[in-house]
């Protein structure tokens, strides 16, 4: 079988791992162009009006990639309406005259199933080959997560921010070529060492903020208007726990993870709220008790599981006077508004700190 041309939606820098996965399966990856306003506008134009914004971004990615000719679109799923995206997106694109195969990873609940689905991307790819492709792509994703975690926690305190950005850019460039387990491991450790060597002017007790919410808007800086970076640059150590590999692991752990998360949410939840919402509550409760300065909750406008979480988070915020900033994104959200709110939030956290140390 000839090499199939395969595309997928963007999410942060994970496109590198998706590209590796597709190419190690023997297919040809067609990475959608970098997101711009045009991506969102094109996607929103063909999407149902009040579907959540990740759907619109995905559609924009597909439309831009389809221009170059595509055989396969890969779509994943989640615990909410994300799970239904694939079929509706396929219907819309087919009505527009595009022809392609959709590989929808939504039904996969265990690793063998996932590997079997992956082999549909490039028929003829052997089982061992698919397992190997998945493992290497997975390690790449973890490497991206480790680097980004360091950046979130430290970039606000770097004496020379450019130094962190240069190391990160080189890492991402080289990761595309690191397609063995060993190469990924080596690149990861040299990058973390290089980042660790960059001088920081970090106070002993920096402001700490946790970021929780819906997975896509959380992990796609273009969709959340770079909120983590803006927070970090305001002199905050930013902590985020939802990552692609954490989601895969939690998904595989199934109910065990759900039960643990409900317990971690303390007295606030008796049941699972769906998707990432239970974790949004649990993390907020844990971090508040650990002495974090505040939380930021992000979601697409109308995201039901996270709206449920908000009713709980608003109560926690009220009863403990614990700062939580709620960010809701749709296709119209303006970048400037996000900037102003982050600035005001960080100023408020600084003031609280000063008041507390003065008292």
């Amino acid at each position, binding site marked *: 079988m000839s090499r199939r041309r395969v595309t997928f939606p963007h999410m942060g820098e994970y496109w590198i791992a998706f590209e590796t996965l597709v190419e190690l399966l023997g297919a040809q990856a067609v990475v959608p162009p970098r997101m711009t306003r045009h991506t969102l506008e094109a996607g929103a134009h063909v*999407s*149902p*009006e*009040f*579907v*959540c914004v990740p759907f619109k971004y995905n559609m924009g990615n597909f439309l831009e990639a389809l221009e170059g000719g595509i055989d396969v679109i890969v779509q994943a799923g989640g615990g*909410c*309406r994300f*799970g*239904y*995206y*694939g*079929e*509706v997106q396929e*219907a*819309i694109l087919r*009505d527009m005259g595009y022809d392609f195969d959709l590989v*929808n990873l*939504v039904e996969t609940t265990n690793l063998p199933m996932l590997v079997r689905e992956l082999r549909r991307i490039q028929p003829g790819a052997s089982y061992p080959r698919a397992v190997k492709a998945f493992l290497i792509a997975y390690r790449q994703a973890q490497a991206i997560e480790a680097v980004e975690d360091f950046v979130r926690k430290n970039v606000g305190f770097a004496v020379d921010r450019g130094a962190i950005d240069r190391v990160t850019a080189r890492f991402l460039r080289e990761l595309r070529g690191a397609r063995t387990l060993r190469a990924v491991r080596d690149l990861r450790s040299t990058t973390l060492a290089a980042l660790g060597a960059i001088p920081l002017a970090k106070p002993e007790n920096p402001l700490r903020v946790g970021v929780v919410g819906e997975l896509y808007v959380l992990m796609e800086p273009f969709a959340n208007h770079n909120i983590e970076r803006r927070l970090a640059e305001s002199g905050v150590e930013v902590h985020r726990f939802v990552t692609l590999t954490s989601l895969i692991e939690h998904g595989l752990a199934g*109910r065990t993870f759900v039960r643990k998360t409900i317990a971690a949410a303390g007295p*606030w*939840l*008796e*049941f*699972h*709220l*769906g*998707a990432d*919402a239970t974790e949004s509550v649990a993390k907020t409760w844990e971090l508040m008790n650990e002495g974090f300065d505040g939380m930021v909750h992000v979601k697409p*406008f*109308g*995201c*039901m*599981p996270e*709206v*449920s979480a*908000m*009713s*709980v988070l*608003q*109560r926690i915020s009220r009863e403990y006077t614990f700062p939580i900033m709620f960010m*809701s994104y749709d296709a119209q959200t303006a970048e400037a508004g996000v900037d102003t709110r982050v600035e005001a939030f960080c100023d408020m956290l600084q003031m609280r700190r000063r008041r507390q140390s003065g008292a």
Partner: protein
Amino acid sequence: MTEGRRIGLPRSLLYHTFHSLWTTFFEELGWRTVTSPPTNRRVLERGVALAVDESCLPMKVFLGHVESLRGHCDAVFVPRIESLNETEHVCAKFMGAYDIVRNTMPDLPLVTYDVDAANGVQERASMLALARELGAGPLVARRAYARAKAAQRAHDLEMVRLQESLLDVGSAERDHTRILVVGHSYNLADELIGKPILEFLRSLDVEVVTSAEVDKPQARALSKRLSPSIKWTYNKELLGAVELYREVVDGIILVVTFPCGPDSLMAELCQRRVEDVPVATLIIDELQAEAGMRTRLESFVDIIEAKRHAAHKAEVEA
């Protein structure tokens, strides 16, 4: 507790589907049931004030109903439902309803039961546990559950029978335009959301068939023809109603409340895949102006009536 023993039922969300089950169950256990009044502006306004801004309209209405039961009962009943069978699930608001109410109105006593059949939490076991919590012995509990299920089944059958008797009249001999109104039971049966739509259509001399009175298992099975991968039980019923009736109606109206995620996707698919019958989507929000709704319905009815007459004329001439 001798004087009290009153359970409050919010007339909202799944009450419109399960009122026979719940009312019979609590009454068989020796509790009186108090149901909140049909939705009115005041109930909605209280709900809007209590809810997170971005909540969907039915959730706002629901919170208004819960609040309106305060002081009229010993505890308000708010079930928690994630999945009713092994392969489907329901909208996330039914998963969150109990914890949302608990955190929005912390001082209000609640009772609940949990159904998550896909993960082994069955309705029967959960309802029996609730009966125990309410002080019933095992025999009374089991009898109450059996009678409640029987009452619910009888009610569902009756609804289906009513609808079918209406549809018995074939399209050849009927002189009224027939429209299928598709929407969640909690929207169509709501005094403020769905009732005005159904009443207005009837005032235009339209024969109204709704998705609320379909044979549910049959509808869910049929939904696969329109959408093989949809997983929400109630959306499957709506799609199944479309599939079941599309050949015997002149038009279909999808009633969607803002900003319902499942419905927005389902409506999109319906508009694309149902080509033989005109389909209109009506979006309702809390600021809904009745005049706008009427204008839209009127023009839709005009269009399909014109189409019907044209077809009739063509038939006569042929």
